[in-house]
C-alpha cells in the first residue's frame, strides 16, 4: 500500500526526443518508417470507434511502449516493418523454429472497421494493411507484457501473504475455531492477524464473519486491504460498516464493523444471529467498548453456544484475558511479531542540564528541547546521509511538540537535511497526511508526535525513535464531573510499543530519555478507558439492552462503584431513569440516540419544542471534534475574520453561527467562478478544519433520521418543488453521482515527495482532484441547503432564548458562577465556581476568556439600595450564570464551551431543589446558590411564574413522549409557552446572588426544629393545583411542588420587615378591584381564585362551591345560578349590568 508507482522497464527513453530526430520527410523509406510519425491515424485504430473496440487501457502508456520498442529494433538495425506478424502454422505441438509470435497465448481480433481505416494520414498517403497488421502485432506484444505484469503482481501479493508471521498458523487457527468456542490470538503489530484471520476463516467455510475495530478508519482500511487480497476489491464480499457509512450487500461475507456499532446491533438482535464468527480485534487497547464487548462475549457464549469468538490482541497482558475466559476454556495461540532488531539506549543524562538551568524557575511549563536537538545532531554525525531512515519523537502534548518543532527548525536552518513534521490529532487532515510522504534523497523526516503514532497511526521507514517517556492522559473525576488531561509516565507496554516503531522496516535505534531504573518502575499497562471516562451513556445502553444492573455485569476490570453510582444519579437527574433505575420514556428515547446523554436530552427537548434544526446543529457541533485548528487562536487574521460569527451568548452559539456561515459560503459558491472563494479556502482563512463541518452535516442528518425513527418528529413531507425544479435537481444529482463514481475509481492519495523548504501552506493548490466531500455534501443536501441555512441557527430573540433553554435542559446542573471579585481583576485572574469545584478558569479559546466583562455586572446595571436590605453583593437584575459542556483540567481546570444565562430565571426553571423563606425573598437553589430579592413580592412572583412554566413544560414533554404522536399538542400551547418563557427570561428583577459554602448551609435553614409547619400546609396550593403539600422533614417548611420547599429558609430582619410591610400595605386586587390586607401567600392564593375575574369579558361561572364563604346566587339579569362570595356577587352584578346595557 502506498508504494512507488512501479517503474516500467521500457519507459526510460523519452519518446518526444526520439520523434524530433526521426526525419519527417515526404519520402519516408521503409527502413525509416515509424508509427510515431503516423500517430494520429494509428491512435484511431488503438481507440476504435467506441469503448468496446478500444484495445488498451492507457493509450499514452502504449505509445511509450511503442517508442521503446522501435528504438530497440533500431539499435539492432532492424526496421519496424520487418517484424513478423504471424507464426507459420505447424502440425507438431512443439514448433521447431523460433518465432516470437509462438510465445503469446492469444490473438487480437479487432473489429473490421478498425482493420481497414478509411482515413488518410497527414500527408494524404493511405496506410496499407501490412502496416496495420504490424501495428496490431505490437499491440499484442504490449498486451502480453501487461498480462505478465498483472500476473507478477498477483504472485507478489500471494508471496507477501505467505511470508507473514501468521501464515504458518493458518491450520492451527482454523482448527481451533472449528473445535472451540473461543480463541485468544495474541500477535504483535505486523504479524498480519487483522488482515489474514478473517480470510482463513472465510476460506474454511465460515461465511458470516464480523470483525470489530476500535477505529472507523481501520474498518475502511482493512476492508479495502482484505478485499484486495481476496481479489474482490470491486465486488462486495468484503464490506464495512461504520457510524456514517455502510458498504455491505447481501453477498458480504466478511464485515469490518466498529465496536460501538456492533453493540448497537445487540439491542435489535440480542444474540447477534446474523454472524457466525465474531472477531474482536485490538482488545489489548482496553477501550470502553472493547471491554464492554468482552463481557458481552461471555454472555453470548452462554446464550448461543454454537457461536465462535476470536479475540485478537497484542502480546501484552494475555493472562488477564485468558483468566477472564477461564471458565470458557479459551484456547490461546501466540504468534511472534516480525520486528527487526532494535538497539536500545537509555539516556537519562541528557535531561540533566535542564535541571541545572531551570533549578529556580522550574515552574516554567515549556519543555526544554535541548536533549532532542542533541540527539538529532548525534544522528547527523554518526549516520551517513545516504543511509535512509526517519526519526520519530514521542512527546506528551501539543505545547511540547511545538517547542521541539521550533528548536528543530532552528537547528535545521544550517543543516538543511531534516524535514520537521508535527503530528497530533488537532492538525488538519492534510497536515497529518504529510507524515506519510517521502523525504527527498539525503534528507530525513523528523516526526514530532503525541502517542497517536504509538498504535493508531503506523508510519513506515522509521529508523530512530526518541521516547520522552511521557504522555498526556485524559482521566475522569466522577466527583467533580471533571475531565483531567495530565502529563504522566507511560506504561512499560507503551514504552515497548514506542520502541517497536523503530524496527518495522529495518533494524533501528531507540533512545529513551530516562534511566533503566525508571523504566522498571513504570506501570505494566496503561489504565483501561473504563476507569477514565464518565459512564452515563454506557450504563443507559446497558439498561436498554436488558442488562438492568451494571453493578453485576462481568466487566474484565469493573469500573469504580463511585463512578457507576454517580452516573446512575446523573441519569436520574436527566430524568432518564426512575428512582428504582427503570428506563423512563425519556431514557428509552435517549438510549437510541448515539450521542452523550446530555446532548441526547437536548435533542429530545429540542424536537419537542420545535427547535429541531438548530438543536440538531448544536448537538452535532458539540459532539464532533472542535473545528478550530491550533492556528485559529494564534493567528490574529483568523480571529478577525471570525469576529462577526462570535456570539455574546457564548461558544455553542458561536459554533452554530460558524456552521451557518459555512453553509452560506457553500450555497453561494459556484465552481465555474474561479475567483470566488470556496468553502475550503474560507475555512483555512479562519483557522477552521472543514472536515468537521462535513461531519456536523452528516451527524445532523443521522440524528434527524434517528429522531424520526423514535417518532419524535414527523415524517418528512415531500419536498415542495415544481416540475422544473425537480428536473434541475435530477440533472444535478446525475452529474454529482458521476463525479462520485469517478472519485471512487481514482487512485487513493499517493505518497508524495516532501519539499525540503516545506514551510506550511501551498496545499491549497487545486490540483484538479475532485473534492469528494463537497460532492457528497451536495448530493445529500441538494435543494435542502436553503432550508438548512434558514434553520441552522436561531434567528429571532425568542428562538434564541428557546435554544439556550433547550441546551440548558441537557446541561443542567453543569453551571458555574463568577467569583465575587472578578470585576476587580484582569483577564487571566477570572475565576468561576461550580457546586463541587471552586476556582475554575475560562478556557482561553472561549469567547468569555477575552470578553470577560460580558459576565460582570457593570456599574449602570447596579440597582439602588432597597429598604433596609444590606449586602456586600451587588444588587442587579443582570446577574449571569455560566453553563458549560465540560470541565477540563490541564495545567489548571477550565470551563469548556461556555454559555451565559440569566441567573435567577435559569435557576428557578432548572434547579432540583428550590428552598424559600416565607416571603420568597430568599431562595436557595440546589443548596449552593442563594438569591435575595429585597423588593417586596418580586421573588414570589418570579417563583410563581417559574413553577407555572415548569409545569406546562413538563406537561408538554410527557404528552409528546407518552402519546406516541397520537394526539397532536396544539400549537397555540407551544406558542403561548414560548412567549411566556421568553418574557420570563427577559424580565427584570433585582436581586443578589451568592455562593454558599457547606458551612453556610447550617445556619440558613429552619431544619427539623419541631416547629409547627402545619400552618404552612396550604389547603389551596397556588403553585400546583393537584399537588398536595407535604412537610419537608429535613429542611423544615413544606413542599409546594416537587422542587419548591416553602418556608424552610430562616427569616432575616429585612425579610421580616418585608413581610410586615406587605401585610400592612393595602392591596387592591387588579382582578376584582377589592382592597385587602393580605400576606404574600394569601395574595397568591387570592390571585388563583380571583384569576377568572381578572379577565372581565369572559367571566367563568362558579358552578360549584370551592370555598365555604361562597353562597348560591341567582343573577336576576343573566338568569344564571352560581356559587360566589359576596365580593364576587357585587362584581358580577356590575359586569352583568354593563353587558345588558350594551346589548340593549
Amino acid at each position, binding site marked *: 500500500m502506498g508504494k512507488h508507482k512501479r517503474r516500467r522497464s521500457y519507459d526510460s527513453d523519452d519518446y518526444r526526443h526520439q520523434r524530433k530526430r526521426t526525419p519527417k520527410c515526404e519520402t519516408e523509406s521503409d527502413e525509416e518508417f515509424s508509427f510515431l510519425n503516423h500517430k494520429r491515424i494509428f491512435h484511431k485504430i488503438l481507440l476504435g470507434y467506441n*469503448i*468496446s*473496440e*478500444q*484495445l*488498451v*487501457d492507457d493509450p499514452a502508456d502504449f505509445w511509450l511502449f511503442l517508442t521503446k520498442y522501435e528504438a530497440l529494433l533500431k539499435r539492432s538495425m532492424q526496421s519496424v516493418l520487418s517484424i513478423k506478424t504471424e*507464426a507459420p502454422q505447424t502440425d507438431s*505441438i*512443439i*514448433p*521447431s*523454429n*523460433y518465432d516470437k509470435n*509462438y*510465445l*503469446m*497465448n*492469444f*490473438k*487480437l*481480433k*479487432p*473489429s473490421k472497421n478498425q482493420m481497414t481505416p478509411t482515413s488518410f494520414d497527414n500527408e494524404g498517403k493511405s496506410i496499407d494493411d501490412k502496416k496495420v497488421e504490424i501495428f496490431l502485432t505490437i499491440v499484442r506484444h504490449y*498486451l502480453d507484457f*501487461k*498480462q505478465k505484469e*498483472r*500476473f507478477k*503482481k*498477483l504472485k507478489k501479493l*500471494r508471496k507477501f501473504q505467505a511470508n507473514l508471521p501468521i501464515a504458518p498458523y493458518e491450520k492451527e487457527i482454523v482448527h481451533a475455531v472449528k473445535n472451540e468456542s473461543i480463541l485468544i490470538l495474541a500477535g504483535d503489530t505486523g504479524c498480519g492477524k487483522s488482515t489474514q484471520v478473517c480470510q482463513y476463516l472465510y476460506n474454511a467455510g465460515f461465511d458470516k464473519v464480523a470483525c470489530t475495530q476500535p477505529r472507523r478508519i481501520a474498518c475502511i482500511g482493512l476492508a479495502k486491504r482484505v478485499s484486495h487480497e481476496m*481479489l*474482490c*476489491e*470491486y*465486488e*462486495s464480499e468484503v464490506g464495512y*460498516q*461504520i*457510524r*456514517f*457509512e*455502510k458498504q*455491505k*450487500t447481501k*453477498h458480504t461475507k466478511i464485515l469490518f464493523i*466498529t465496536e*460501538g*456499532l456492533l*453493540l*448497537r*446491533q445487540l439491542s*435489535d438482535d440480542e444474540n447477534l444471529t446474523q454472524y457466525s464468527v465474531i472477531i474482536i480485534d485490538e482488545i489489548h487497547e482496553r477501550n470502553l467498548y472493547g471491554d464492554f464487548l468482552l463481557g458481552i462475549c461471555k454472555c453470548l457464549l452462554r446464550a448461543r453456544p454454537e457461536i465462535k469468538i476470536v479475540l485478537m490482541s497484542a502480546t501484552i497482558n494475555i493472562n488477564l484475558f485468558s483468566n477472564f475466559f477461564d471458565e470458557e476454556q479459551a484456547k490461546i495461540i501466540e504468534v511472534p511479531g516480525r520486528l527487526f532488531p532494535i538497539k536500545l539506549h537509555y539516556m537519562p543524562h541528557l535531561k540533566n542540564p535542564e535541571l541545572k538551568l531551570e533549578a529556580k524557575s522550574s515552574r516554567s511549563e515549556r519543555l526544554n528541547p535541548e536533549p532532542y536537538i542533541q540527539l538529532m545532531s548525534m544522528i547527523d554525525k554518526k549516520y551517513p546521509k545516504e543511509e535512509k531512515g526517519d526519526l520519530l519523537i514521542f512527546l506528551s502534548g501539543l505545547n511540547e511538540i511545538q517547542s521541539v518543532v521550533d528548536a528543530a527548525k532552528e537547528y535545521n536552518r544550517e543543516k538543511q537535511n531534516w524535514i520537521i513534521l508535527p503530528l497530533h490529532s488537532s492538525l488538519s487532515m492534510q497536515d497529518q497526511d504529510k507524515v506519510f510522504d517521502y523525504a527527498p534523497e539525503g534528507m530525513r523526516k523528523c516526526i514530532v508526535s503525541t502517542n497517536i503514532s504509538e498504535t493508531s497511526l503506523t508510519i513506515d521507514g522509521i529508523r530512530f525513535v526518541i521516547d520522552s517517556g511521557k504522555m498526556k492522559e485524559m482521566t475522569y473525576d466522577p466527583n467533580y464531573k471533571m475531565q483531567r488531561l495530565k502529563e504522566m509516565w507511560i506504561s512499560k507496554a507503551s514504552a515497548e510499543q514506542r520502541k517497536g516503531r523503530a524496527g518495522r522496516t529495518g533494524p533501528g535505534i531507540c533512545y529513551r530519555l530516562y534511566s533503566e531504573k525508571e523504566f522498571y518502575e513504570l506501570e505494566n499497562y496503561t489504565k483501561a478507558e473504563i476507569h477514565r471516562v464518565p459512564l452515563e*451513556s454506557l450504563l443507559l*445502553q446497558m439498561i436498554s439492552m436488558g442488562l438492568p444492573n451494571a453493578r453485576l455485569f462481568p466487566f474484565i476490570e469493573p469500573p469504580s462503584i463511585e463512578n457507576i453510582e454517580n452516573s446512575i444519579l446523573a441519569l436520574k437527574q436527566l430524568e432518564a431513569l426512575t428512582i428504582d433505575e427503570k428506563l423512563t420514556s425519556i431514557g428509552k428515547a435517549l438510549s437510541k440516540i*448515539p450521542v452523550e446523554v446530555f446532548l441526547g436530552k437536548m435533542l429530545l427537548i429540542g424536537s419537542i419544542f420545535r427547535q429541531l434544526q438548530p438543536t440538531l446543529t448544536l448537538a452535532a457541533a458539540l459532539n464532533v471534534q472542535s473545528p478550530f485548528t491550533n492556528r485559529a487562536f494564534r493567528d490574529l487574521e483568523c480571529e478577525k475574520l471570525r469576529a462577526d460569527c462570535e456570539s455574546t451568548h457564548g461558544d455553542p452559539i458561536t459554533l452554530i453561527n460558524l456552521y451557518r456561515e459555512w453553509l452560506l459560503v457553500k450555497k453561494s459558491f459556484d465552481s465555474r467562478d474561479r475567483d470566488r472563494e470556496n468553502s475550503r479556502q474560507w475555512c483555512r482563512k479562519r483557522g477552521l478544519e472543514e472536515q468537521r463541518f462535513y461531519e456536523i452535516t452528516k451527524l445532523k442528518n443521522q*440524528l434527524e433520521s434517528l429522531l424520526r*425513527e423514535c417518532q419524535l418528529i414527523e415524517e418528512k413531507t415531500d419536498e415542495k418543488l415544481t416540475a422544473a425544479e425537480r428536473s434541475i435537481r435530477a440533472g444535478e444529482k446525475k452529474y454529482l453521482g458521476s463525479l462520485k463514481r469517478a472519485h*471512487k475509481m481514482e487512485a487513493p492519495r499517493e505518497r508524495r515527495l516532501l519539499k525540503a523548504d516545506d514551510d506550511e501552506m501551498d496545499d491549497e493548490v487545486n490540483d484538479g482532484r475532485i473534492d469528494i466531500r463537497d460532492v457528497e455534501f451536495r448530493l445529500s443536501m441538494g435543494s435542502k441547503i436553503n432550508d438548512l441555512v434558514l434553520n441552522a441557527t436561531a434567528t429571532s430573540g425568542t428562538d434564541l432564548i428557546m435554544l439556550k433553554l433547550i441546551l440548558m435542559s441537557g446541561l443542567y446542573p453543569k453551571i458555574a458562577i463568577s467569583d465575587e471579585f472578578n470585576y476587580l481583576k484582569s483577564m487571566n485572574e477570572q475565576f468561576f465556581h461550580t457546586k463541587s469545584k471552586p476556582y475554575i478558569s475560562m478556557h482561553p479559546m472561549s469567547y468569555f476568556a477575552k470578553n470577560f466583562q460580558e459576565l460582570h455586572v457593570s456599574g449602570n446595571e447596579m440597582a439602588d439600595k432597597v429598604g433596609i436590605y444590606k449586602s456586600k453583593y451587588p444588587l442587579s437584575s443582570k446577574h449571569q450564570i455560566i453553563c458549560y459542556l465540560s470541565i477540563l483540567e490541564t495545567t489548571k481546570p477550565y470551563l469548556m464551551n461556555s454559555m451565559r444565562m440569566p441567573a435567577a430565571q435559569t435557576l428557578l426553571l432548572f434547579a432540583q431543589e428550590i428552598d424559600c423563606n416565607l416571603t420568597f425573598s430568599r431562595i436557595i437553589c440546589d443548596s449552593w446558590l442563594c438569591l435575595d430579592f429585597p423588593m417586596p413580592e418580586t421573588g414570589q412572583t418570579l417563583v410563581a411564574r417559574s413553577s407555572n412554566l415548569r409545569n406546562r413544560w413538563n406537561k408538554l414533554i410527557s404528552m409528546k413522549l407518552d402519546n406516541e404522536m397520537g394526539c397532536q399538542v396544539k400549537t397555540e400551547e407551544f406558542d403561548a409557552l414560548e412567549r411566556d418563557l421568553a418574557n420570563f427570561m427577559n424580565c427584570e428583577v433585582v436581586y443578589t446572588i451568592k455562593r454558599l459554602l457547606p458551612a453556610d448551609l447550617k445556619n440558613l435553614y429552619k431544619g427539623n426544629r419541631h416547629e409547627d409547619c402545619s400552618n404552612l400546609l396550604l389547603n389551596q396550593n397556588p403553585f400546583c393545583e393537584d399537588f398536595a403539600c407535604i412537610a419537608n422533614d429535613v429542611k423544615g417548611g413544606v413542599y409546594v411542588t416537587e422542587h419548591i420547599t416553602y418556608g424552610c429558609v430562616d427569616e432575616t430582619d429585612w425579610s421580616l420587615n418585608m413581610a410586615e410591610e406587605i401585610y400592612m400595605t393595602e392591596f387592591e386586587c387588579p382582578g376584582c378591584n377589592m382592597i385587602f390586607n393580605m400576606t404574600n401567600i394569601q395574595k397568591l392564593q387570592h390571585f388563583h381564585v380571583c384569576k377568572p375575574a381578572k379577565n372581565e369579558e369572559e367571566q367563568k361561572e362558579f358552578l360549584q362551591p370551592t370555598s365555604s364563604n361562597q353562597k348560591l346566587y341567582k343573577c336576576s339579569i343573566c338568569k344564571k345560578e352560581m356559587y360566589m362570595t359576596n365580593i364576587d356577587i357585587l362584581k358580577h352584578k356590575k359586569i352583568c349590568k354593563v353587558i345588558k346595557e350594551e346589548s340593549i
Partner: protein
Amino acid sequence: MEIGESSKSKATDEQNLQPAEKIPFLCRECKMSELVHYYGSKPPFVRNIEFLEDCYVMKDPFSAPPLKNGKRSYTEYFLVIGSKCKICEEDFCKDCSIFYSNTFCIRCAHSQVSQFPVEIQSKIRKEFLAIKNDR
C-alpha cells in the same frame, strides 16, 4: 457511539446480482490456488481477444470493471492464471509453465527440451533448476 442501521446501503444493482460460481484453479507445481471466473478460450468479459488454448481466466482483479461510458478498455480486463500442460494435461500456473504455441509445464518441457528451438532451451533449463531448488 455509532449509528448505522438507518444509513441506507447504496449498493448498485450490479453489486446485488448473484456472483457467478467461480472455478477453482490449483497449480500442480507451486500449489497456487485461486478461484477464476472462466475456463476456456473466449471469456465473455473480454473483447477483441481470443486465447489460443483453453485457460483459466479471471477478470482483472486490480482494476475497476470497464463501463460503457468509461475509459477503461474491455480488451485488457483479464488475467490468465494458467492452463493445462499439452503433454501431461495437468493444471499449471503461468510461472510453472511455458507457452510456446501450447502450454507446457516446466517438467514436461524439460523432458523434451531438445525439441524446442535453442532460443528457449536455456530458459527451460533455468526454470527447471529453479523448481528443483525450490523443492
